[in-house]
Structures are given as C-alpha cells and as structure tokens.
C-alpha cells in the first residue's frame, strides 16, 4: 500500500522561478501534493528571526540552519502545520510568520513554532539554488 511508481515519479524535484516574488511577498507551490511556501523575507523579518534566543524555542533551531547562506532573504518551508496537517496562513499571527487557523499554532518568520499545540517547526524541504533566480525543490 505504499506509493506506487507513478506517484513516486510525479514526486520528482521541481524548479521554481523566484524572480517575480517581490520582497515581502510569498508564493505557494505544490510539490508532492504538499503546499510549499517560498517567502521573500523583508529585512525586518530576517532580523526578527535571528534576534531570537534559540534555546528558548520549543523546537530549537537557528534561522541560519533553516536558510541557505547568502540567500537568507529566502525562506522555503512546507506549509503543513506540524500539529494535524492544516495549511497555515502566511503573514498572520503575532510573530510575523504563519498562523494555523485550525488549532491556533503560530510560527515565526523563520517558520519555527512559537505558540500553540504544534510540536515542531515547519519542515524545510530539500531544495537548492540552481541559479540566483531559480530554485529546485526536491
């Protein structure tokens, strides 16, 4: 009952052109049926994410570890709440990040859980920069 060959093939990596995403904007693309948020973060959002005392977080992880060096304005996360799988809404909540409408989990501008029942941060999917304006997810 595990995924069949066609499902696995359809789950191959995808390339996304990120040049149209303005600062402060984000897009949602689907990969393997999951929504992936690609956020072009503002300076303020980056600073907020980096100013946090990592040890105080429920799921300690630094913003540096969740973004690519030199590309820290880009945040790529799987937009599935780690509580029970709803899709959090971007640019909502108290932490300039994501807010899950189902059970009230709030994530910060690095996609890290800050408040609510979710146990973990929004996962970062495997991705790399193919060029300055293009990323490959998967």
């Amino acid at each position: 009952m595990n995924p069949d060959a066609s499902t696995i093939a359809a789950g191959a990596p995808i390339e996304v052109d990120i040049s149209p995403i303005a600062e402060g904007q984000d897009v949602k693309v689907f990969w393997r049926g999951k929504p992936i948020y690609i956020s072009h973060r503002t300076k303020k959002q980056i600073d907020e994410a980096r100013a946090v005392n990592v040890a105080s977080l429920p799921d300690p992880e630094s913003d540096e570890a969740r973004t690519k060096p030199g590309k820290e304005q880009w945040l790529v996360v799987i937009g599935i709440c780690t509580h029970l799988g709803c899709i959090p809404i971007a640019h909502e909540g108290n932490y300039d990040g994501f807010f899950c409408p189902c059970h009230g989990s709030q994530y910060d501008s690095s996609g890290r859980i800050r408040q609510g029942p979710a146990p973990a941060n929004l996962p970062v999917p495997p991705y790399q920069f193919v060029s300055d304006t293009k990323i490959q997810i998967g």
Partner: protein
Amino acid sequence: MSGPSDYQPSNPALKWIERRLPIFGLMHSSFVAYPTPRNLNYWWTFGAILSFMLAIQIVTGVILAMHYTPYADLAFKSVELIVRDVNYGWLLRNMHAVGASMFFFAVYVHMFRGLYYGSYKEPREVLWILGVIIYLLMMATGFMGYVLPWGQMSFWGATVITNLFSAIPYVGESIVTLLWGGYSVGNPTLNRFFSLHYLLPFLIAGVVVLHVWALHVAGQNNPDGVEPKTEKDMVPFTPHATIKDFFGVSCFLLLCAWFIFYMPNYLGDADNYIPANPGVTPPHIVPEWYYLPFYAILRSIPNKLAGVVAMFGAIIVLVFLPWLDSAKTKSSKYRPLAKQFFWIFVVVCILLGYLGAQPPEGVYVIAARVLTVCYFGYFLIVLPLLARVERPRPVPNSISEAVLARSGKAVASIAVALVAAGALFAGTLQDARASEGSDAPPAQKWSFSGPFGKFDRGALQRGLKVYKEVCSNCHGLSYVAFRNLAEAGGPGYSAAQASAFASEYKIKDGPNDAGDMFERAGRPADYFPSPFPNEQAARAANGGAAPPDLSLITKARSYKRGFPWFVFDVFTQYQEQGPDYVDAVLQGYEDEPPHGVTIPEGSYYNKYFPGHAIKMPKPLSDGQVTYDDGSPATVAQYAKDVTTFLMWAAEPHMEARKQLGFQVFIFLIIFAGMMYFTKKKVWADAH
C-alpha cells in the same frame, strides 16, 4: 441457553435440508423459542434497531457504490449526479448519510444502556468487548465514508485524522505514508478508503454475529440485573420480543425519516458542499458529531502524542470496564451512588461533544481539560471506588418478583428523551459552522421552507432571468442542465421552452473528424456553460478571487446559529441558513464602510460577508433586470428571486423529497400504531 433445538420442520423439503444442515433449527432456537427475560424495557430494543440500521446501511451503500466514482477529480461530481440524476438517488444518499448518524445515535444509546444496567459484568465480558470492537469498526467505517464525497470537510477531516498517526514515535511518518499511498491525502487515499469503506461493514456484520452468539450463550441481561431462575422469568423471543422490536424499530424510523426527508443537511457540514481543495483549509475543521467528544479530548491535551493516546485511550478504556467495575450488583437501579455518577457521566460526554465543536481557545480549552479528567475519572477512579464503598439496595429475588413489584412506565417519556438528547447532541455540529465577524443574516420568509414547502414558480423563472443576465457573467452553474428547467418541481417550463432556452447558448464540442473543437447551439442535455475555462482564468480575471460556482452555493454557505437555536431548529425544521445568507450578501453592500473599518484596495464592504471585505462588486441595482410579470424591479426582489432559483439549482428534487416524506410519515405512524397495539395484545398476559 440455546442448546440443541428440538425443532422439527413439517414440510418435507425443509425436513430434507434440516437433516443435512440444521439451519432452521438454529434460527428457531435463536429467534423464536429463545427465552428472553420478561422485564426488558424499551432500551433493549436498540439491539434490533442497530441490526436493522446495519442492514439499511449495507443495502443503500451497495446501490450508491454502483453510481459512485472513487476518483479525486470526479468523486464530488459523481455524488452530486447521484442526488440529481439517479432514480431516487437523493433518497438513497440521504438515507445513507443520515443513517450513519442515526446508527451512531443508536449505538450510543445501546452503550449507555449497557453501562447503566451493568451488562458488561460476568458472564458477559466477551459480549461487551465484542461490542467495543464493533464500535471501533463503526468509527473507522464512518470516518472513511465521510471522506468519499470529497468535499472540503472530507478532505481536511481525512488530513487531520490520518495525521493523528504521525504522533507515533519512530514509525509514525511511515504509517501515514502507507495510509495515504502518496505524499499527501490524494487520489490513492480516496481509492483505498472507498475499498475499505465497502469492506468494513461486512466485517462489522461478522462481529455482530459473534456478538449475538455471545449474547445467546450468556443470555440477556435485564433491568433488574438478576439472572433468570425459572421458566416464569422468561418469555419466548417470538412473538414477545419480535413484536416489541418491531415497534421500537418503527418509532426509530420516524426519527430517521424526520431527518432524511425534512432536514437531510442538518447533521452534515455546509463546507462539505465545497469540492475538496488541497490549497485551502476551512477555518474550522470539525468531525462528524458522533466523534466530537473524542475530538474534544484530543484537543484538550497540549502535547500531540499524549492527545492522541488520550483519544484512543478513551475508547480502549471501555474494554477494561468489566474489571474496573467489580461491584456485584449489576443494575444501577439498585446502586444509588452509581446511578448518580452515571448521569453525571452522560452529561460529561454531551458537554465534551459540545466543546469538540467549539474553537480550541480560551475557556473552551480549560473546560475540555476539566471534562477530560472527569471522563477518565469515571472509569479509573469512580467505578473501582464505588465497587468498594457503595452499599447497594437489595435486589429482587427473581425477575418475576421484580415485574410484579413494578408500576407501569410511560413509553412516551422515552421517546421525548430520545428526540431531545439527539437534538442536543447533533446540533453541536451546526454550531460549529462559523462565519465569525459578521452579523447574522436576517431570516427571510421562503416559499420552500417547512414540511410542505414548494418553490414559487414565478420566483424561479425570474431568478433564472437574473442569473442569466447578471450572475452568469462571472459565476458558473455547472451541475444544472437545461433539461432540468423542464423537470417537475422546477421553474415549470415545457420541454420545448427548455430546448429553446438551451439553443440560445453556444456549447463547445468536439473534436470533429478534422480533429478540431467547434461550437454548436446548446441542447437540453447540455449543462450551463461556465464563464471561464478554468479556475485560474477565473481567478486572473477577477483580481485573484475566483467566483464560486453557484450550483450548490445555497447549501455550501451557512452561518453560526448558536445555542440554543440549533436545538429548536430540529423541531422547526429551519434549514434556510444558506438562502438567508445568499440573500443577505446580495443586499449587504454599503458604499461607505462604517467608521474604523478599512477595506483593502479592490474589495468592497459587505455587511454580511465574513470579514466584510468582498471581492465581488455590488452585483445588483434597482431596475437592472426587466421583469415581464410586473414584479418590482428592486434589489430586494432580485435577491430573493435569484436565491430561490439557486436553492432549486442546489436541490432540484426538494419538492419530491418533502412530498414523499409526508407519505412516509403517514405510513410509519400507522405502522407504529399497529405494532404498538399488537404488542400490547401479545404482552397482555406477560406483565
């Protein structure tokens, strides 16, 4: 009890079979000669009611499966086509959907009855555990069945529930992938759920056979909880229990018919009339009402794994009930303290159900935590403790002694209690529908409301005109075909008129022999063409918000009724939240938003739209559409007419449903009456 039968058929053919397979003897000893305690009350008819409901669910389900398409892109539409086009498809679908709720309602009564009268105690432990297994199978079946229509609540319910398994350490994620058959809930998930939803009821039927077998070995418990001693304590199953069960079933069917024919959507969720969309989470994800108490327990615990463990624990604890409650006295009738705690427990369960439908914030979370503690406390602390400290009242020496001592009890009070409890429990779901931040739409008078409601033909025809001239520029009506305009219970056009109406439309067809697509005039069998080729085009042309298809809009929109209105609605048959909302939104535009409210660029202020910022510009203005019949050309009239039309579009067979409902009610009332008097006659010498 049911030892070897001495039954001998007189018919030679039956005799021939009986010598080779003693099946008639088995039936005879199990359902005819089988001795049943003579003091059983009506709570004991729920066993028969449940067997009957299982049969109904299997029969309607098998027929529905013949018309259903388990494919993610087609499932939602195929369910709509069942309701619209299959002969009596609307009836089958309502029976199956309402039947599931009624099945759970009956099983809860059955379980509480077992709890109250101590039916799980020695020697009926295995009987009870088999019952818990049936209940677990029912929950799985019900959940997977709810996924099949592939609406928003189906999809997101499936996402939330399958994600519960991801809480299991180490293997959780692999289990979830195995359940999905992919990387998220999708077509493979739908396919396997359909397969399992078809399989599990037959497993349930198998376990029910074991359940009945165990029952017939241990014998039925009874309200006094004393084991039968002599012949005088018993009556034969047929005719006594049979006729009583017939009466019980027919009364229960009256309750079912009330929902099937008059409020089929009351127990469901309006969001499930929106096709599944993996990109949008509904603001409130609520399971079906019968899972709400467990959902409340799940959410009351802040830790994910602990929450899941508590939720499953709440059911598994029932397996250990026979050993947790070691009191010798079975029936709570003779246990003054246990009786009080039982009723407190019932209230705790109902309140948990209510909280399960509320948003998980503030006081609701705290209340749910307190009640979760109470729930487990009842099983793990109260029952074991009571068995040690309670001093039960003396039980009667025998069943016949108990029968003689008993004064008559009213049946009506039971029926009233049933309806009231059902209403209270079921209504919590309606309450969960949210449209926060907007005023409640004013209730309108609709010609189609109430048990004898009919569509106003004039309003339907005018509404069609408004749709065609105004709404259809942006909104599709893709489940309605031109032929429907000439069908009974619709706008009342002739087949020729519908055909002429269709021919005014250009329909894309093809490919032709040259391989090209071409346009031709519409035919009655064609569906209303949508204004945009796909959702993306609709989105791009309308500033990012795709205008929804209007075929189901009056069923897919609702607003919060709140306590206690949802309880009254069961009796008043108020079903018109959707039309009230649509009508209110069409008239709710205000040029200037109230002071302090800012509306984003490209949006408009609407008093009744959730959040107040609607992307649709004010669609209607006075005099915009010319009416031929002299009705006032005002926005209020337009809104009312087009809403009536859209209500018909959402449910073209509504008139047939209400008409048939009335006939069924007359039949059931007469049938139940006949059963009641037959039962009185049969039992005349047994009481």
